[in-house]
């Protein structure tokens, strides 16, 4: 088991190293001088030279890469050209809406999808099952920003049930800020519930035909207990993996949904950074988000190892 954990840690470090390399390459794909691009067409030549030196762009590409890796390893993600602040600080300032939007949508997606998946599997082939499969497919076909725009109009602007947009202003209380995330989270949760419905259903179908479920039934146990205690508990494991994997989907959805609801999160930060050519921010955000994804999925694997005795890799 220790060997497995060590292997997984090593694998994770290699993947993180590739993530860092990919990010380094992407930013250097831009044709022309990144320093000149960042400062715009009106920049003074001496400013461009100064920025090139500051970013190390005047050095050979290998030296640039080693410097980049060294900086990342020591937790230095560079400085935002626009904000004139360390990138990690800028990301930290914008992280709250994105983190809570992602968390709330996972909660909403799971609480919609898991019961639907269970009932669907139980009544496999029935009307409910067919309806839920079609519904899941439809949900997965709707662009989240489009659904956001429609619900924003009808539920927020017209009906007044939710705040229309924004994050409640600079002095807003925590509760007020979270209130602004309810509608965006519903949008993102519904759209992303599709994958979890399908996985819960498939995983339940697998488990429901297992011997121990038949044994539980033959002992005269109530159906409710069989399904929830015996079957669902074991079907949960693949479902947890999918919830981990939806993290990347949700971040993608959050980037676009934030724009619909004018939330000052990571999504709007990146889009702003692209329009302002603030490469260190684009690069830093990619690193943080992809890094988090790798670490979260590693931790989920470790949780398995702890809770599921069948996992003996």
């Amino acid at each position, binding site marked *: 088991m220790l060997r497995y954990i060590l292997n997984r840690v090593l694998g994770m470090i290699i993947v993180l190293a590739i993530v860092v390399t990919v990010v380094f390459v992407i930013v250097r*794909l831009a044709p022309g001088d990144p320093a000149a691009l960042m400062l715009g067409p009106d920049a003074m030549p001496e400013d461009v030279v100064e920025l090139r030196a500051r970013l190390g762009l005047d050095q050979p590409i290998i030296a640039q890469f080693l410097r980049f890796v060294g900086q990342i390893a020591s937790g230095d993600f560079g400085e935002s050209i626009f904000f004139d602040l360390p990138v990690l600080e800028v990301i930290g300032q914008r992280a709250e809406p994105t983190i809570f939007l992602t968390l709330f949508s996972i909660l909403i997606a799971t609480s919609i999808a898991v019961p639907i998946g269970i009932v669907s599997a139980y009544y496999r082939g029935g009307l409910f099952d067919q309806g839920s499969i079609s519904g899941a497919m*439809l949900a997965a076909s709707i662009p989240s*920003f489009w659904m956001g725009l429609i619900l924003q109009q009808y539920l927020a602007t017209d009906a007044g049930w939710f705040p229309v947009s924004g994050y409640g202003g600079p002095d807003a209380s925590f509760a007020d800020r979270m209130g602004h995330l309810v509608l965006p989270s519903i949008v993102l949760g519904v759209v992303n519930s599709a994958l979890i419905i399908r996985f819960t259903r498939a995983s339940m179908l697998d488990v429901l035909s297992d011997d121990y479920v038949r044994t539980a039934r033959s002992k005269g146990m109530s159906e409710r207990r069989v399904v929830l205690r015996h079957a669902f508990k074991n079907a949960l494991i693949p479902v947890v993996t999918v919830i981990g994997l939806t993290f990347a*989907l949700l971040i993608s959805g959050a980037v*676009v949904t934030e724009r619909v609801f004018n939330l000052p999160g990571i999504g709007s930060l990146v889009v702003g950074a692209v329009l302002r050519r603030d490469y260190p921010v684009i690069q830093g955000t990619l690193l943080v988000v992809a890094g988090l994804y*790798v670490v979260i999925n590693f931790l989920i694997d470790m949780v398995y190892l702890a809770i599921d005795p069948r996992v003996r890799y």
Partner: protein
Amino acid sequence: MAASVSAAMQVSLWQVLIQRRSVLIGLIILAIIALAAIFAPLIAPYEPNAMSIRDRLTPPGGQFLLGSDEFGRDVFSRAIYAGRVSLSVGLGTAVLASLFGVLLGLLGGFFRRLDGPISRLIDAMMAFPDILLAIALVAALGGSLFNVILALSIVYAPRIARVVRASTLVIRELPYVEAAKALGVSTPNILVHHILRNIVSQLIVQATFIFAYAMLAEAGLSFLGVGVDPSTPTWGTMINAGRAFVGTADWLILVPGAAIVLCVLSLQIAGDGLRDALDPRLAKEV
């Protein structure tokens, strides 16, 4: 042997199309939208960019079938023309991502030495949320139509590569591949004729989904204003332009949005039906 397996698969693909009503319906809807886009100049009642300030924001019905926008342009005509770009991005990405993905997947699955590095590369690429990676790539490459397709292909190629690699690992060990090796068939020949031919149907299923994801992603990029040039009508840019008029002229976002949903849904129905038909084990589970 490989040829006959492949022929059997091709037969089954045709049978799937005929027998599975869902696949057929999905493909018919998609074909109608695609034909409308291809023959846009014949079908569209107006030039997509023809402005008529006098007729701005006219509701659907009457002179404009699906209404007009803030410049008095016909929404129906624009939606048909926009379909050309949106579908091109979807199709282009599906094809290019398949090319990259097949190359990576075959190499990783067939050559043990390359498997480790390629698998880690796939893992690393899949750690990036698709829109975020696409935004960064488009920002670096520039926002032309081809660059959007290239960026989305880089984003989705790892998904294809993962499936191709897994299948190649299995097929590599089959007796007929061993036999081909023993007969001295060259490696490129084995890769193309014995392995690739046998994963074509799986590849088509994956490419169908990538087609759908790419259309959603393109719409997202255009909505954020970081996709293709905003003056090019795509369904995403139409929604982005129409958002200022939600509540007063809902048709400006409803029409392009419905077009996206219809296309993506029909692709998903077709992809799902194909997958179920080609893999009876999955048909039972999913």
